[in-house]
């Protein structure tokens, strides 16, 4: 049996059962192209009438977008009635395929899952061949929302009575991901708010500094942080309640008082201080291994259900709920990482140390945690610091030994101080949730002041006034380049080339045209500056080969699109996207015409020569 169905057989099967038109989602662009090639030798061609209909629609599209007149896929499209549609194609080709689909001319389209949301591209049937997609160089499982967006293209309103989403396996498919996707409830969406330099400059241009916090408070990010803070506040209410029996006694702050007394007493006693044979990092970590905490183990993860010290050695121990549901007692030393995540856990006094509902939800949440979690930074103290002698000498000053509530204090101290610690931790966590955005904002202000875009009073300086108009990725690098006069006297082609190497963030390898010496040395300068800015902004890839593609297109106005494509192994669609993004960056430079007329002029010349041929077809 082949690992996956042959495209020709697939289309035949779909046609037989009247399941066309269909969109076939394949794992890669290459798979789409190969699927198209596999029709080269088939003789199941369309009847002439349908071929003519396709030709007619294509003719109309070509009249508008001449760049696709010679498209190599046209013969197959016309003969068989199938097409490919993916990010390696020009936008105009994709429009042509969409148009053919809308007219009902095609039986199938081979596409990748990048077939973007919203593009009106429905079919009777959707074929799914994968359960994961490549995201930032890694394969991740499709989310429920993604499965539903893909499957949702099946069944055209007004044209179909039913729609079909059909899974056909290919190696590495996990059918469970897909069945869950079909039947599940889409994931909640979470804010992805990041504070960028242009955001800070633009906000401070329009509003005084003291209005920044209220503005940040309007973000969805803060809305969601507040939701989390409210949960903690409720927990804090609970803790207040539990602290009730431990209110003021003979001394108001008896917990601290007893703690101090107890420690001094131990140090004075002949036994000496309790020596714990544990490395300092274990004791530092142990403090955070409270119920609900996610702990990283060598190969898996677990949720802490309780922490305690063993009877004999007094060594730190935790009870862990592991992935898979096992509950184990382990020395705290096996915990390799403490994550910055605490799950809700209703504690109980006996095994399994929490309520059964809580156990179930913990297990579920544990299984659903994302692969990567932030690690809690833990400060390890150098050594167990002894109480200064001066205090030890003052043991006589403690009234505890004769205090009437001595026995009560002794009995309650452990529990009360644990509760109080937890209270304090919660208070801190709530504070962090309420103020973290503002702190991140302040960090950006500091950096902008450091570079002189903001005055010490957080007003825009002269440089800040124009720098705020650069609102793209790597804005700091670009404005610093401008201030360093890196582009002074540069030809439009060179400027555009540098912009495209900043804009391009794909590290797919390929063969590319040669780099001119001028471009090489300018990029060297850019790279150096980007390196020096790396504490403030992640440096871009700055690929010279990519820059050369742009340079050639602009420097040589006689170069045709086909000619440019021949110079590299990049797909047509990728070259188009590169140039379109360069156009966007250049147009931002053009907005600096009041302060940097020469640069703006250079940018607009580059724009003018860039926008020709294919790049002129669409706005």
């Amino acid at each position, binding site marked *: 049996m082949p690992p996956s169905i042959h495209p020709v057989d697939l289309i035949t099967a779909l046609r037989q059962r009247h399941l066309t038109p269909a969109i076939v989602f394949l794992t890669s662009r290459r798979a789409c192209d190969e699927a198209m090639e596999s029709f080269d030798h088939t003789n199941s061609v369309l009847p002439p009438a349908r071929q003519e209909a396709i030709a007619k629609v294509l003719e109309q599209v070509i009249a508008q977008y001449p760049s696709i007149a010679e498209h190599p896929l046209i013969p197959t499209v016309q003969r068989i009635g199938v097409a490919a549609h993916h990010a390696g194609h020009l936008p105009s080709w994709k429009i042509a395929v969409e148009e053919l689909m809308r007219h009902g001319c095609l039986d199938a389209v081979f596409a990748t899952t990048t077939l973007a949301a919203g593009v009106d591209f429905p079919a009777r049937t959707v074929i799914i061949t994968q359960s994961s997609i490549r995201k930032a160089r890694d394969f991740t499982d499709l989310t429920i929302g993604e499965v539903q967006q893909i499957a949702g293209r099946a069944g055209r*309103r007004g044209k179909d009575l039913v729609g079909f989403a059909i899974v056909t396996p290919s190696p590495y498919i996990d059918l469970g991901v897909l069945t869950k996707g079909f*039947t599940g*409830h889409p994931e*909640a969406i979470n*804010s992805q708010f990041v504070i960028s330099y242009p955001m800070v400059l633009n906000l401070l241009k329009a509003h005084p500094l003291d209005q920044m916090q209220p503005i940040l408070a309007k973000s969805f990010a803060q809305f969601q942080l507040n939701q989390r803070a409210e949960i903690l506040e409720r927990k804090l209410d609970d803790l207040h309640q539990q602290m009730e029996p431990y209110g003021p006694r003979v001394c108001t702050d008896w917990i601290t008082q007893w703690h101090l007394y107890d420690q001094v007493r131990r140090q004075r006693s002949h036994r000496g201080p309790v020596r714990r044979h544990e490395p300092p990092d274990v004791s530092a970590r142990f403090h955070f291994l409270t119920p609900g905490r996610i702990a990283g183990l060598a190969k898996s993860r677990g949720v802490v259900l309780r922490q305690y010290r063993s009877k004999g050695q007094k060594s730190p121990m935790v009870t862990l709920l592991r992935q898979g549901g096992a509950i184990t007692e382990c020395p705290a030393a096996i915990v390799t990482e403490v994550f910055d995540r605490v799950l809700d856990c209703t504690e109980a006094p006996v095994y399994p140390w929490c309520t059964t509902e809580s156990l179930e939800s913990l297990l579920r949440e544990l299984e659903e945690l994302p692969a990567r979690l932030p690690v809690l930074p833990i400060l390890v103290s150098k050594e167990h610091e002894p109480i200064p002698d001066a205090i030890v000498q003052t043991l006589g000053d403690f009234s505890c030994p004769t205090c009437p509530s001595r026995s009560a204090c002794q009995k309650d101290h452990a529990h009360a101080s644990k509760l109080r610690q937890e209270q304090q931790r919660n208070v801190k966590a709530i504070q962090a949730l309420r103020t973290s955005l503002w702190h991140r904002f302040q960090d950006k202000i500091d950096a902008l002041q450091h570079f002189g875009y903001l005055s010490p009073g957080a007003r825009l300086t002269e440089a800040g006034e124009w720098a705020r108009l650069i*609102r793209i990725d790597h804005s700091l690098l670009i404005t610093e380049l401008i201030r360093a006069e890196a582009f002074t006297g540069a030809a439009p082609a060179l400027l555009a080339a540098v912009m495209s190497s900043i804009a391009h963030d794909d590290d797919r390898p390929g063969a590319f045209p040669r780099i001119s010496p001028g471009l090489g040395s300018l990029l060297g300068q850019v790279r150096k500056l980007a390196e020096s800015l790396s504490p403030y902004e992640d440096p871009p890839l700055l690929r010279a080969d990519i820059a050369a593609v742009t340079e050639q297109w602009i420097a040589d106005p006689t170069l045709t699109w086909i000619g440019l494509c021949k110079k590299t192994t990049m797909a047509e669609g990728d070259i188009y996207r590169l140039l379109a993004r360069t156009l966007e960056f250049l147009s931002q430079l053009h907005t600096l015409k009041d302060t940097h007329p020469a640069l703006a002029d250079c940018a607009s010349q580059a724009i003018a020569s860039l926008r020709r041929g294919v790049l002129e077809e669409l706005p």
Partner: protein
Amino acid sequence: MTTEELEQLLAQQPIALLHRLARGRVQRHFRTGKRRLIELLLRHSAENRAGFESDLLALIGERTARPAAPPPRPAVQPARHSAEARRAASAHQEQEPHEPAVTLQAWLEGIGVPPPQPFVPDPWQEDALAKLQTGDVIVSVPTGSGKTYVAVEAARRAMEENRTVIYASPLKALSNTKFTEFSRIFGADRVGILTGDRRDNGQAPLLIMTTEILRNLLYDAAGGEIDVRLDTLGLVIMDESQYLADPERGVVWEETIIFCPSQARLLLLSASIGNPHDIADWLTSIRSTPCHLIKHSKRTVPLRAGYLHPDGKLTPLFRTLGIPHGHPGQWHPEAKRLFARYEDETMPSGRRR
């Protein structure tokens, strides 16, 4: 409810719930123990016994509803979980009537083209348009439901009142499609498109642009350089709003929503998402008018799922004709058998299961 019954009910509740009930009723309720708190609550309830009881029941309802309602993921995958979860899942399945699995023939029945019908807007479409009269609207419905109709009608109504409309999309490709579509509907002279370096018909009453361009316009306006006629802006349509969750670009949607002029209505169109209520609540909390949520998850064209074996054999994927929502384990026995065979043959190392 008698006072005794009420007292008993209160005593059965966890203290946290009592505290929530005590908010605004009992001063300094955190300082009191459970006994005392119940006493104080009972004393207070005399003022408005009915209101008190209904609040209490609502809180209890919320508590019991929470574990049952299935936010983020509804069902546990039976295969990988603890014995307990498995038992719960199988108990769950036993409750289902064990009807025979659907046949391929029945599954393939009903393919065809519906007879042409005059266009009648769906109730949710009408509802969205009506609600837009009194505030912002977020629409969260499945793919292909007809969100464009809402956008077009809302734009038409705003333009009839001589207001500018901005339609923001996440992608240039989508902007281009909508530019063609809207030009056909409203006439080419009434629709414009803005990109970074180009503006076609930039003074038209309906402007199409990507969300980034719109964000930049709003920053320019806030900085004092009015560019487009934002003062007459009456409606901002943000299509594919689920991009709010995009790791790289989501922030642009937030910025745009935060700085959207208060006189303009916001219409957010989104595919089905897990927490549309949160978005609506957020908008209500920061905008001058309330945000209404229009939401449903029923597809207009019913969907069926199938499994196609590499040898060409087709079978339904689930036991049921439609999608068994909330029951990912209800595989069709034939699909299960074929896929097990597939895994055996293609993954001899026994990767899974």
